[in-house]
């Protein structure tokens, strides 16, 4: 809803159009380098507006987002060379964040010519002038940014669907699992090991299951397990939704990964939670296997205290042997398809999706990783995310949601399932997860003791995108 604060000149026909570029620079190196360019009378285009921050580690990717939102045509972020940071390691952390955020912007289809990163030291006035020249040229080529928060033209993208339908699992096996789950839940409650069992029970829509909080052994008969137990119950283990007291929670493979990440992030009081791993046959969405289940073997997570399968209940995390056939992940095929398109078409595709967002925040509400007591979307001074339910506000929200989950999302795809606007949040999350896997060999939800990838660094992290 807001008018661009840095009023971008958007009339391409006007010969006077010059790009507006926000340069977010660290105080100690790049700002001093820019100063050096000035004192040595180096000429460079007057297209950049400098935003001085103490350290590139201070650069929240929201600054980049906000710059575009307020009318910048391009953004340059620049700090000290690795090893030169005034605060020793700020730029190392920054480098990882930039890698994640840049890959997010690329995937969403923002023209890559609009976002640039560089290391420029205090003595590199010449480099500063050169980089500003290069960035100005690139942004000029890209032209005025006129489609932030909207699709310039219809995207007309059809995503590939998995060809071979998967067979539904045998009902008898699911009934056996249900029976064992009920027995285990009843005995945990009877023996007073937990006050609540978090499971699934039939919901108001035929075939639907919904979260159930079982407190009495006799109520365990309402628990069910089938092919529609979508809810990731780990969402009730942390933050404002956290269930108080000792709790046993039924977890599928994906939910167990969520619990593992919560533990890694210090959110789970391990002794208060009994994780009951359920051997999962894969979950069905309408008549198809959920995308995330194609590449998952359904085995229970290593963290589980019990393993429940059709054959019975076993203590600890035990391979059930009932390995599901796995194949290529349809989400990866769809991501590959999107990445084969021109950025502008990808941008239009995502903007069409975001245009339908109503900001109900169901994506946040069901996400086990969204446990903050106060979300950034609720911050009003300054207001990072416009409250307006429109292209600008929706783009900001969806970008920030995805970025905050980078390196944390375990791919349970609950956000995508519950989205009333059918936004393919799963693809965005997955693309970021793949980026962090490839770059930092990090697989969210596998190691309860590993540091989250954006909370750590290696001095030799790849930095091919930084000049």
């Amino acid at each position: 809803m807001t008018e661009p604060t840095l009023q971008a000149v958007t009339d391409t026909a006007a010969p006077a159009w010059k790009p507006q570029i926000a340069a977010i620079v660290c105080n100690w190196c790049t700002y001093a380098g820019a100063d050096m360019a000035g004192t040595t009378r180096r000429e460079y285009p007057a297209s950049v507006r400098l935003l001085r921050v103490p350290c590139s580690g201070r650069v929240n990717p929201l600054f980049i987002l906000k710059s575009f939102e307020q009318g910048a045509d391009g953004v340059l972020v620049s700090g000290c060379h690795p090893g030169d940071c005034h605060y020793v390691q700020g730029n190392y952390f920054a480098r990882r964040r930039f890698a994640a955020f840049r890959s997010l912007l690329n995937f969403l289809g923002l023209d890559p010519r609009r976002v640039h990163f560089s290391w420029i030291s205090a003595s590199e006035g010449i480099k500063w002038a050169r980089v500003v020249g290069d960035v100005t040229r690139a942004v000029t080529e890209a032209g005025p940014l006129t489609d932030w928060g909207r699709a310039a033209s219809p995207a007309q993208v059809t995503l590939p669907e998995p060809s071979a339908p998967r067979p539904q699992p045998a009902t008898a096996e699911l009934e056996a699992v249900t029976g064992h789950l009920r027995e285990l839940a009843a005995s945990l409650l009877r023996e007073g090991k937990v006050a609540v069992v978090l499971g699934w029970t039939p919901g108001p829509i035929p075939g639907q299951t919904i979260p159930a909080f079982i407190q009495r052994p006799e109520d365990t008969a309402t628990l069910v397990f089938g092919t529609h137990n979508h809810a990731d119950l780990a969402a009730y283990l942390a933050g404002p939704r956290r269930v108080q007291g000792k709790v046993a929670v039924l977890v599928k493979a994906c939910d167990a990964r969520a619990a593992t990440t919560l533990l890694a992030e210090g959110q789970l009081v391990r002794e208060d939670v009994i994780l009951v791993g359920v051997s999962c046959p894969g979950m069905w969405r309408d008549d198809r296997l959920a995308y995330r289940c194609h590449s998952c073997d359904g085995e229970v997570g290593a963290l589980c205290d019990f393993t429940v399968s059709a054959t019975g209940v076993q203590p600890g995390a035990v391979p059930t042997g009932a390995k599901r056939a796995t194949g290529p992940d349809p989400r990866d095929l769809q991501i590959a398809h999107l990445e084969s398109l021109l950025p502008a078409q990808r941008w239009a595709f995502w903007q069409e999706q975001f245009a339908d967002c109503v900001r109900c925040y169901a994506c946040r509400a069901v996400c086990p990783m969204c446990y903050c007591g106060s979300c950034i979307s609720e911050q009003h001074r300054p207001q990072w995310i416009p409250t307006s339910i429109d292209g600008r506000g929706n783009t900001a929200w969806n970008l920030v949601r995805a970025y905050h989950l980078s390196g944390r999302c375990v791919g349970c795809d609950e956000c995508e399932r519950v989205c009333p606007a059918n936004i393919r949040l799963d693809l965005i999350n997955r693309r970021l997860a793949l980026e962090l896997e490839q770059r930092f060999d990090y697989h969210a939800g596998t190691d309860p003791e590993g540091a989250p990838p954006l909370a750590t660094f290696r001095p030799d992290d790849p930095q091919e995108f930084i000049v």
Partner: protein
Amino acid sequence: MSTPSAGPIHRLGRDQLASWLDALLAERKQVFAPVLRRGLRVLRAVGRAQEADLAPGRTRWSPKEFLFPRTETLFSYENRDGVPVLTDPPADEAPRILFGVQPCDAAGLVRLDTILLQDPFYARRRELTTVVAIACSEAAPECFCTAVGGSPAGEEGVDVLLAPLEAGWVVRALSPKGEALLAPRRGEWEPAAAGAWETALEQAGRVAGSIGRRELPTAWAAKLEQSFDDPRWDELARRCVGCSICAYVCPSCSCFDVADEGSDACGSRCRTWDSCSFRLFTQHGSGHNPRSAQPARSRQRVLHKFAFYPLQHGGQAMCVGCGRCIRSCPVGMDIHAEVVEMMSGRPEKEARDVQG
């Protein structure tokens, strides 16, 4: 299913309906009709009759956004050399038609009127809007219009009612606005055969009969209000995760937030949908929150619709039974079952089973 209230009834073939729609578009009326895009059935402005999808079934969102937009600018401001300049948003004065909505959605607009008609932006749009509803030919498991005084052929808030009949439609105007919409066509349309309307209503009666959910009598409001401190609310709403799907898909939820967006140079004052399910909705500046936990927020939604509002507005519930909130809730909150349980003392699941 009251007796027809105005004007003769016409029988229309499918092609006739399409050419009517095209004629309305040719008159430069904005027509919002259900369309299918990205797997979503939504109301959108259509350019040709062909785009409209008039098959049975509700749209993902209610039509309220065309009268009470998700976000609207109340005014914009600009700092011109130290002088603040305020600008009104451009007014859209085109007459508009909500074409093919369900009767429950039309009734939802009447509920909205009681809250929002005092707002000039809403009132102007309401004045410009004509509602063409289609009587339902099937009911979903979450439908419960009959439980709150509605009907699959409900007339409340409807200007023109269409009912499917064999391979076409019967149509009649139910209000002066509706009459104005039909009048220019009367010459070219044939009157329906005697009994055609009744046949169409019988079909709607069968749909009503297939809705298994029990009535929620208006007399319950006072007793329901007494349940405010009932500990069962905590149990009922424990699974609520605090999104606002229920409020945003609801045809009658009317809460909003007003925020200034922009900088000291320029910006606008925006009114945006808000929801009682959000923590921030009742957060005080002091930090105190009278609805500090999710069950209290969830209770608010139920009590507002079935106790507070009816007690203040002549008994009618602030709910038209469209069932969207039940269908779209990520954790299957069921507002109908919640009311039934609170009033009957039966566990929610059992309450649902009893309803069929």
